[in-house]
């Protein structure tokens, strides 16, 4: 292999990792844009996306055609994760932001009923002649009903006494709590043994690989999985940028990110807009989780989101947190820097390089590559 070929191959490798980072980083940057806090649970949404993909292709659609499997897994992962994102926002962040209110009761009732069902339902199943499924459903329904009534009452009382938090720190700590919850619940539900599955090519069960792309003397190895991840990342980001720039929803998101109070005064339903950003960001993270693991067969467990989430967060800061294009640029830069480092003599410092780049960029451009300077209003 000559130098040019190495250069191109490493760039291709880097762009592939970078596009996964990009899909995650976009979620960090969007939430930061509207709420000015880091949603540390975002990396764990990626993990849920990977598990959704895994169960879709191994259990639900085990013997279907690969393209159908892939498409369904992608859609299911995106739907499941966007629901999860919405739920987290409704359960944890909104009560903190607006003060706990009667309208928070449904999400809280559902959340705690899940655990009630798990423990009380399990206890009841052993002592009942009814089918297990029915017992669980009944326990859940009764629990949601009772909790809803109790919590609604409780929250109504509390909402008169409590003021909403203006402290970003408590939101941040809550995000860490949600992240721990997801990781440990993932370990409890799915086990800590790593899972791996791969959508295989139609051609006799062989892996989907383009053997090489040849141009003159240069041979590049590019997997079909890599191309799909990259294409999906570019497509989803393009759709996102379009939405934010040119649609009414996007205008609302930008308005809320500029000044939440003023946006509310102009009649923008800020809570709905915030929920929207969680929905979009989580769907993209779910897509990243499914694509990265199900197309390449890389093993993962419930802690997979920690390291990837951290790197995607760094990518978002590098690109200028709050800027979607910046997050994508930062992510691609980080991916390329990482592969070039691991191909060089400094391979053990591969993960450190990301932070070195971050420090250097922030020294000269404190708002990140594409971030804008926004003076803090006092």
């Amino acid at each position, binding site marked *: *292999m000559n130098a040019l070929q*190495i250069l191109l*191959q*490493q760039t291709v490798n*880097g762009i*592939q*990792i970078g596009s996964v980072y990009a899909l995650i980083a976009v979620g960090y940057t969007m939430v930061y844009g509207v709420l000015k806090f880091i949603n540390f649970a975002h990396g764990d949404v990626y993990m849920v996306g990977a598990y959704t993909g895994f169960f879709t292709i191994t259990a639900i659609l085990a013997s279907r055609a690969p393209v159908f499997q892939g498409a369904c897994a992608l859609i299911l992962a995106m739907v499941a994760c966007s629901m999860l994102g919405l739920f987290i926002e409704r*359960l*944890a962040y909104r*009560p*903190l932001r607006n003060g*706990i209110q009667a309208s928070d009761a449904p999400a809280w009732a559902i959340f705690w009923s899940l655990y009630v069902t798990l423990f009380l339902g399990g206890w009841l199943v052993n002592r009942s002649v009814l089918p297990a499924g029915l017992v669980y459903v009944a326990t859940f329904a009764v629990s949601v009903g009772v909790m809803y009534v109790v919590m609604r009452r409780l929250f109504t009382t*509390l909402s008169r*006494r*409590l003021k*909403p*938090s203006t402290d970003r720190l*408590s939101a941040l*700590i*809550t995000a*860490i*709590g*949600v*992240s*721990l*919850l997801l990781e*440990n*619940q993932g370990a*409890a539900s799915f*086990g*800590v*043994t*790593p899972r*791996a599955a791969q959508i295989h090519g139609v051609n006799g069960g*062989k*892996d989907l*690989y383009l*053997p*090489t792309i040849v141009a003159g003397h240069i*041979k590049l*190895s590019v*997997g079909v999985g890599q191309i799909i991840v990259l294409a999906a990342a570019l497509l989803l980001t393009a759709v996102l940028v379009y939405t934010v720039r040119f649609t009414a929803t996007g205008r609302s998101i930008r308005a809320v990110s500029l000044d939440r109070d003023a946006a509310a005064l102009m009649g923008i339903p800020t809570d709905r807009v915030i929920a929207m950003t969680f929905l979009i960001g989580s769907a993209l993270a779910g897509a990243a989780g499914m694509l*990265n693991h199900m197309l*390449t*067969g*890389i*093993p*993962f*467990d419930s802690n997979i989101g*920690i*390291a990837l989430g951290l790197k995607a967060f760094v990518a978002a800061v590098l690109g200028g947190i709050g800027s979607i294009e910046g997050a994508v640029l930062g992510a691609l830069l980080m991916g390329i820097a990482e*592969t070039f*480092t*691991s*191909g*060089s003599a400094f*391979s*053990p410092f*591969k*993960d450190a390089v990301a932070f070195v780049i971050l420090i250097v960029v922030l020294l000269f451009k404190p708002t990140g590559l594409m971030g804008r300077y926004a003076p803090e209003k006092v």
Partner: protein
Amino acid sequence: MMRLKMWHAPAAVLIATGIVLSGCKSPSNSASQSTGNDIIVGEYGSLTGPQATFGKSTDNAIQLAVEQLNSAGGINGRKVKVVTQDDMSQANNAALAVQNLIDQQHAIAVLGEVASSCSEAGGRVCQEKGIPMISPSSTNPAVTQIGDDIFRVCFIDPFQAAVVARFAHDGLGATRVAVFTNTDQDYSTGFTKNFIAAFTAMGGTIVIQKSYGGSDTDFRGSLTAIAQAKPQAILIPGYYQDVASIAKQARALGITCPLLGGDGWDSPDLIKIGGAALNNCYFSDHLAIDDPTPAVAKFVAAYKAKYGQTPDSLAALGYDSANLLFAAMKAAKSLTPSDIRDAIAATKNFPGITGNITINAQRNADKPAVIIKIVNGQFTKYMSIANPDVPLQPKAS
């Protein structure tokens, strides 16, 4: 008072849930009330986590050995009860598990672990409390260097690495080898160091050396650099899960040379994840399950009958570690930890299924290693190497 920071409630509750749930996953133990007369032996292993298949195989085999012992009358009429703790493949959990086994369960001897990092953590606790420990399959030399209470029934990494070096040099005729190490595992770094020393002493060249970390999932950057160096073989002394991913990505990048490894490869999951990418690759191991000797065949049949699957070599070592401990307990003057320790140290030519085991002065086992070749997804015995210092006869293939 009520007003004070009550809006922290959601945060507090969620964090509490996180803490409670993380605490929930306490090590499991096969709890049944001790009758008081049973001899308690502790076992700690990776029943879950990245090295779970190792831990499960070892645990299965130990349970099999105990069952056979107890149905044959136990030790001097007393039954043995093995209390098992899961360390989730984490060294800090291993230390806690061993502490629990000794302090709460009152184990008089301990079996475990597979991963050297975990055995070291657990071994330090055993040494401190004066309880003998036998590791079935930790190959890092540091494990038994902890002290005179720590033993093992397998060979050690310098030996295994030298065997692989000898095989690469003579068996494959390779003179240019690349090395790809997991810097987060003692096993991997130790193996790498010893392989390089042995291979260069034979006149071979290490063309490139790369490393990865425990949480890495994409290895293309390093592999592209390795491909550029055009090695005749690549040594990947990691565990199956990483190796399977690395093999796939290496093949995708057009690397066709054989990959080499050690006993960390031995898992059915290697093939399940890696598939065809691992064909015609080689690794050193403690035993070949397809070995037609009567002892191996008998063990394989009993294991299959109980668990419905073929044992791997880690199961064989788990079985040997338990049986060697039971033999030592029978031979010991009394069932105190120090007498058991002395009896284990005095073991000579114990007929294990992984070969005859003699515990040497460094408390390690002396015995040959086997080279396994992966042919169409099957582990097949390729050759046996007893002394890596002697050049191999060229094998007609």
